[in-house]
């Protein structure tokens, strides 16, 4: 089972080894006339089993940082290393493979595919690993069980509450047993009670399953529950 293996394979707190390391990272968006520096000289290391919160005002570069860590975007300068290997400048196919094998994403707006059932949504990462259908189903059911949604596997996203949809999104993020879980304001679209539930789930994944988590949030209460907080301001790391 995916989650069981995660639990046995990783410690609850950082082991000291770097799950992800950013060195001298800069991200500049250029148009014909304007050059916008979204991130400047970011140096950050997240150890295996860490739970890190990223905070800062809107537009400070939090999501850009998460996109770079998730290999969804490439840095303009600097290096991004995953498990000790530089991956920031790899070609598309290689970056896709790393995303598939080593990273799980949780988005603020869930991004579930409305035409697919809960089970099919959770299976998505496994589709790109050529996992057999029976194995996909078994792993997806285990992930849904981990987030407490075993009874909703054949429902569609529109039939679920916001909190349940985010649980599905978390199940999708962990189904492939990634090295790193990246959450971009995972409670941003939820009320405080549901937000607490989701945060509890993320903490559980970190504590019990050893998942390394980097979470962007605006909520100081959630950040307090992280092992440490990285603060950004105008694209610079201030803490």
């Amino acid at each position, binding site marked *: 089972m995916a989650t069981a293996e995660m639990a046995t394979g990783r410690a609850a707190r950082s082991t000291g080894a770097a799950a992800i390391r950013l060195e001298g990272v800069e991200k500049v968006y250029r148009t014909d006339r304007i050059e916008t520096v979204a991130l400047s000289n970011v140096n950050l290391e997240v150890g295996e089993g860490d739970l890190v919160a990223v905070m800062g005002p809107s537009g400070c570069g939090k999501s850009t940082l998460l*996109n770079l860590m*998730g290999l*969804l*975007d490439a840095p303009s300068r600097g290096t991004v290393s995953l498990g000790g290997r530089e991956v920031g400048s790899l070609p*598309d*196919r290689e970056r*896709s*493979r790393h*995303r*598939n*094998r080593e990273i*799980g*994403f949780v*988005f603020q707006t869930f*991004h*579930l*595919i409305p*035409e*697919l059932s809960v089970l*099919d949504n959770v*299976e*998505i*990462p496994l*589709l*790109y*690993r*050529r996992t057999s*259908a029976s194995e996909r189903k078994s792993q997806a059911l285990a992930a849904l069980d981990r987030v407490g949604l075993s009874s909703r596997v054949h429902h569609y996203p529109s039939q679920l509450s916001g909190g349940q949809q985010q649980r599905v999104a978390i199940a*999708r993020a962990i189904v*492939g047993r990634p090295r790193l879980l990246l959450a971009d304001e995972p409670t941003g679209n939820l009320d405080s009670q549901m937000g607490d539930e989701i945060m509890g789930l993320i903490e559980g994944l970190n504590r019990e399953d050893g998942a390394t988590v980097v979470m962007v949030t605006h909520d100081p209460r959630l950040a307090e529950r992280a092992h440490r907080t990285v603060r950004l301001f105008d694209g610079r790391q201030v803490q």
Partner: protein
Amino acid sequence: MLKSHVKLALKVLGRRPFFTGVSLLGVTLTLLVLTVVAALFDHAFAPHAPEVRQDRTLLVFSLELRGERATSTGQPGYLLLDRYARDLPGVERMSITTQIQSAFTYVGGDRVRSYLKRTDGEFWRILSFDFVEGGPFTDEDVASARPVAVINTTTRDRFFGGGPAVGKAFEAEGQRYQVVGVVSDVPFLRLVPFADVFVPLTVARSDAWRRDLRGPFVGVLLARSRADLPAIQSEFRSRMATVDLAGTEFATASAEAETLFATVARMLLRTGPGRAAFGRGAGPGGYAVKFVLVLSALALAFMALPTLNLVNLQVSRALERASEIGVRRAFGASKAALVGQFVLENVVLTLIGGGIALVATEAALRALTASGLIPYADLHLNGRIFAWGLLFALVFGMLSGAWPAWRLARLHPVEALRGGTR
């Protein structure tokens, strides 16, 4: 993964029934036309009875004679076929037959036109006609110029009111014939076996036809095996260099032993009297290849407009899928995987359209058969036409799916997750 993508494709199609309906209508109409055309070609060229050995049959259908001052393009004469096409190595049987000609018969005061073909005894051994009465005329009938005839069932019905016809007589072009056999109708589009009335070669009023290099004849060569075809063609071509043209105004004779398809290709690709049937570069089989290319180009051109229409519809739906594309990219889909997914989704759409088109094709073919536009046509779907329909649907799906798929796959994952189109 395939099952998952197909499942999703069907659900996406159900999301916007109006768009899907418009797309399906365009796909279906396009594939319907292409499949009906394929069915007509199948009707004309596929190895249906009586041409069941078509795969090892060659025709000598055209002859070109060239001199310093004159060029003659037409059909070969009996003399040319008899002298230069007989006993070719690798040929099991050889028949000489005329092309169809109109023959008129008075039935109850009405002047009835039939298509008449003069042929020999081998004709009946090369082709497998379905005799519903009697049998073919024999080599001896041909040698003795006996006025006997084989007619088709429609002619039997017209001449004799549908009752048994063997032993009965009728008159055509002032000549009285006794019916020795009745065969099932053969469609008009079958170049070699089609006729209403078949009579021996020798019953012509004069025997001048025996001495002509040119004339309305066709040589039908049945090879022992398909492997013998190239050698037969080569030997026949070299024999053409030895044609005795003494006493004529011509210096060279050119003719080819070709498959039915190549023969028809040569006929259709001739653009005018100034263009030689055996022009430079045509080569053996060259016309067939060129004809296939022309047909393929026409099919692609015919698909172009509906393809553009479908491309526009699919691209316009692309933004709805931006979030999905972002998610798939985030969870490991490469651009190539996404292109594959979206092309597959489009192929699912065109295959559904293809399925509807095949049902509509059967209805159209029945209507065409009932209309009598093509005499004796009996058009129906079969495995080959089904396969062509499937191929058209796949090509159409890939053509119209490739561009939208490429556009979608190129979306930057970050922008896609925001619902944009960077």
